[in-house]
């Protein structure tokens, strides 16, 4: 197994944000992390990115504890995109990609920037300041930054939140195509159930810091006797039981 999460726990003062969760992700698979607001998704992502120290438990990458890697060695294998995290607004798109390319130590950086910019169709606003872009354009730039290092592990937090259906579909199609052509393991946190059904091989449902169910979308829909993932999500989010 590529990534293993064992008994991962985070307690802030007396509040348990993540409560002894266990899951694993196979290499090159996409896992959806679902759950209502405040269920512990962001804290789990934060712990995987090294931004939050777990209270208990461990994260293993290829059976090695994440703690045993040097900070920069492990982080160059990861990347992350979220509409809630932005790139410096006063810098142009090109400048931002250049800086992050350098921070990730990318060889042939200009070539890589050109490649990713063409793929994500951002070349026509390349020289504009990032803060002047529309949210759809910003999301594409943020995704370009998250793929600049061709990460082995990509963490996406609501990558299509607040986008119009057209741009949202463009991003989803791009992620699907990118996955076909590159070896990448994706953890996707999202509230868009059709997006999760389209992109994820399996999903993990969280509530109040705990994993309440997991499996492939089809299996979960069948198991809970619902018509689609959205209905399944609502049933799980509102129920008091674990499954």
């Amino acid at each position, binding site marked *: 197994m590529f990534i293993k999460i064992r008994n991962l726990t985070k307690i*802030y003062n007396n509040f348990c944000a993540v409560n002894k969760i266990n899951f694993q992700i196979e290499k090159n698979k996409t896992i959806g992390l679902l759950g209502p607001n405040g269920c512990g998704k962001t804290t789990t992502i*934060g712990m995987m990115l090294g931004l939050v120290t777990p209270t208990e438990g461990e994260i293993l990458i290829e059976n090695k504890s994440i703690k045993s890697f040097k900070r920069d060695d492990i982080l160059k294998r990861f990347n992350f995109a979220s509409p809630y995290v932005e790139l*410096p607004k006063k810098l142009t798109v090109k400048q931002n990609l250049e800086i992050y390319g350098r921070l990730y130590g990318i060889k042939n950086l200009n070539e890589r920037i050109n490649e990713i910019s063409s793929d994500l169709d951002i070349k026509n606003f390349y020289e504009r300041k990032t803060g002047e872009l529309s949210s759809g354009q910003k999301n594409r730039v943020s995704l370009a930054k998250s793929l600049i290092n061709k990460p082995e592990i990509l963490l996406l937090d609501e990558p299509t939140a607040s986008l119009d259906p057209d741009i949202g579909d463009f991003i989803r199609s791009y992620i699907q195509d990118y996955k076909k052509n590159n070896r990448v393991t994706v953890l996707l946190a999202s509230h868009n159930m059709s997006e999760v059904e389209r992109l994820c091989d399996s999903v993990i449902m969280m509530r109040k810091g705990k994993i309440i169910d997991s499996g492939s979308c089809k299996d979960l829909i069948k198991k809970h006797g619902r018509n689609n993932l959205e209905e399944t999500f609502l049933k799980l989010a509102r129920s008091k039981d674990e499954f």
Partner: protein
Amino acid sequence: MNFNKIYALGLRHLYLIMNSFPRVLDLIYWPTVQIFLWGFISKFFTLNSEYYNNTVGIILTAAILYDFLFRASISFNMMFLEEIWSRNFTNLFIAPIKIREIIAALTITAILRTLIGLIPAVLIAIPLFGVSVLSLGIPLIFLLLSLYLFGVTLGLLVTSGLLRYGPSFENIAWASLFFLAPLGCIYYPIDILPLSLQIIAKGLPLVHIFEEMRSILMNNTVNYFNIFKSISISVMYFIFGVIIFYISYFGAKKRGTLINMGE
């Protein structure tokens, strides 16, 4: 240390300055106003008494050196705050860059911001008030080094506070230097302070720097031991600042504040 990564982070702040003319203007404006203000005040004294003949040179040199310290500290804080304001904080802290490389990049880039602001002010003082900070000679380099290290240390302590308490600590960033100014003996000798405060003041490098500056300008004598003492004290504070920064960083990871910073 990976110098490419330090360079990349420096470049981020260089682009920020280059992309915004108002930002450059803001950097130059305040030191220049300071020079005008202190220049005219000192000139006024010389008009009324011969006793103050040398005042313009001493006060303006002190103002320039103090502003150098102030700009170094504020530059360090500002660069860190820029990451919070632009909501880029998470991106920066998940990039494969070591914490010591972030500190090094901020320390090195702060000098650039400081010099952009100060060089025009220094040049204006020469024709306008007949005062050149360069008249301090070679010791000027060491005095600036000591001031710079101490300025960056204050920056480190404020950014540690930002890591610990979040953006609400921002106001302290602006006020930090004014806390120490009275004890720094920038415009007056240490004897002016009450005895109890003199003891505290001697623990700061500022007293030794500004005493030495006055000694060079008034007596034409250089005491390298005093300069060495001020640099040594600054280095000790710098090491302390780095330790506090690391403690705050690990504390912030424990409290989970890094993930919400700037959101």
